[in-house]
């Protein structure tokens, strides 16, 4: 069935990883709800369902399937949900008496609020996501690191310890960059301020206990936010891809690629790819690939996707192979192996395709391309 074969290639294998994280969060939230088992509750449910039926019948043909709601407001309790693993390899683990809330999970960002206690976060590098941890009046911004954050609302105290990478902390006490091996403590006098929770603008004067290194004390971002023009980075973080690209172009950012942080580079490349600005996406990905840092495998994979879409299977083959050589077991390994398989078939290079199929099955026996790989490798089905 040729149309179905073609559909396999063009449809792809499903939604983005960030959307899958939202699915997981939704599942964990649903599974944390206690099931209602009492007969009275069931009777009430049946009555409600009957009442709803009329509305559903009327509304059924009018609705065409609402788009998925963005995930928000998932509560984490260290005693109940000690850890949450994200599909991009990031994870958050809470101490038993700690509580937190995940406010936003989307393509570009994860925002969580530490209500009290401590959490340890491992934020995977090169995913293009920015993690914002709110703890009372403080904000900790992370792009790829391992860190531990402790917050006590009663004592008005924050402690940030970084074991890998670097984070930016802002709020009372000014902004500071905390690097691997350093610990930053900040405190506000909780008795001097208004009744809790104290809004950041009215936060009392901070007492800084320890600074990791001398830092220039800038005003906290919250204090200047209202009058500040929105930068292309913020537009990008908010998901306004086209506007962010236009603004970055206007500021000449694309002629100074070497100055950009790798995670920002990949975010811009992704935005350009999704906005169909292919030459720009290629230039950004090529820069990331050339740097050979953590995001290079992702850059090679995305270049391969662009090549395959542009009908350049030879170039796509080289890009997917490069992605695999850079990171044979990374988050893009399965997709690179699967796409490589498709490209080799398109090139009608059957011996190489069979070899790639065997490699695919060895690494991803139940993966998206396993059916195709089994056929190619000649393996008998279970």
């Amino acid at each position, binding site marked *: 069935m040729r*149309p179905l074969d073609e559909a396999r290639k*063009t449809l*792809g*294998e499903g939604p983005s990883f960030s959307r899958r994280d939202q699915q997981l969060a939704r599942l964990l939230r649903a599974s*944390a709800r206690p099931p209602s088992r009492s007969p009275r509750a069931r009777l009430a449910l049946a009555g409600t369902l009957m009442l709803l039926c009329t509305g559903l019948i009327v509304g*059924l*043909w009018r609705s*065409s*399937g609402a788009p998925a709601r963005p995930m928000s407001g998932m509560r984490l309790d260290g005693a109940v949900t000690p850890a949450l*693993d994200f599909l991009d390899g990031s994870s958050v683990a809470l101490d038993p008496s700690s509580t937190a809330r995940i406010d936003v999970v989307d393509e570009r960002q994860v925002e969580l609020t530490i209500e009290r206690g401590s959490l340890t976060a491992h934020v995977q590098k090169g995913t293009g996501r920015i993690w914002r941890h709110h703890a009372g009046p403080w904000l900790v911004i992370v792009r790829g690191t391992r860190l531990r954050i402790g917050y006590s609302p009663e004592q008005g105290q924050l402690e940030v310890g970084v074991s890998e990478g670097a984070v930016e902390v802002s709020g009372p006490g000014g902004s500071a960059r905390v690097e691997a091996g350093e610990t930053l403590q900040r405190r506000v006098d909780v008795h001097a301020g208004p009744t809790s929770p104290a809004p950041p603008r009215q936060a009392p004067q901070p007492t800084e206990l320890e600074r990791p290194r001398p830092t220039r004390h800038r005003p906290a971002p919250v204090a200047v936010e209202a009058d500040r023009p929105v930068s292309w980075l913020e537009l990008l973080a908010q998901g306004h891809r086209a506007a962010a690209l236009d603004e970055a172009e206007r500021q000449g950012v694309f002629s100074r690629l070497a100055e950009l942080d790798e995670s920002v580079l990949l975010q811009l490349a992704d935005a350009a790819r999704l906005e169909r600005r292919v030459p720009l996406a290629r230039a950004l990905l090529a820069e990331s690939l050339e740097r050979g840092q953590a995001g290079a495998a992702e850059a090679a994979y995305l270049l391969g996707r662009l090549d395959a879409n542009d009908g350049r299977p030879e170039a796509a083959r080289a890009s997917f192979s490069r992605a695999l050589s850079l990171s044979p077991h990374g988050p893009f390994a399965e997709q690179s192996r699967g796409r490589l398989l498709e490209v080799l078939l398109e090139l009608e290079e059957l011996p190489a395709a069979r070899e790639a199929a065997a490699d695919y099955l060895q690494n991803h026996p139940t993966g998206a391309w396993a059916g195709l790989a089994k056929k190619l490798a000649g393996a008998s089905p279970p």
Partner: protein
Amino acid sequence: MAPVSAARGFLQVARPDEEAELGALIEAVARGEPRAISRFFGRYQATVNRLVWRLLGADAAHDDVVSVAFETMVRRIRDVRSPGALEGWVRAVTVNATRMELRGRRWRRLFSRSIDEGVGLDHPDLSVPDEEQRERLRVLYRALGRLGADERQMLVLRHLEGLELTEVAEAMGCSLATLKRRLVRGEERLATALGAQR
């Protein structure tokens, strides 16, 4: 020799270490342990997402259907007869969840004036830049929409997902003979529906 376990009449083979690992995972999910649920999701999310994506055609309802499927799995994971049967069971639950959505769509189409009602291809993550390819997809999913939910699922599982006949039969909960008969009929009806659009 690897242990052999029965699932819906079909033989599944699992490595002993894998079987023990899956058994522990099933037990932990049944107890409602968040970390186990998270691991279970991580293990099967690619399969479930891909199946729903292809069965519905990158539909806006995709994430809701995936959520329903996983919530059902977590609730009913003790129904799995043996760890070796878990993967087939995951597919079967996913196919069931998708079937409900497809049947709902047929009703919606009855009352809709748009020929593209319920065709799908409206998920925000779908990226098909080439307009001709996109049109061909639309034609295909319009034609699939004219088939019954079961026939459509059989065709997609077999030809788009590339499953073996035994795997399709297991996911659909029917015998191999029934599957073969309905696949032939489905292929003919799909060819007719595609021809009618040209």
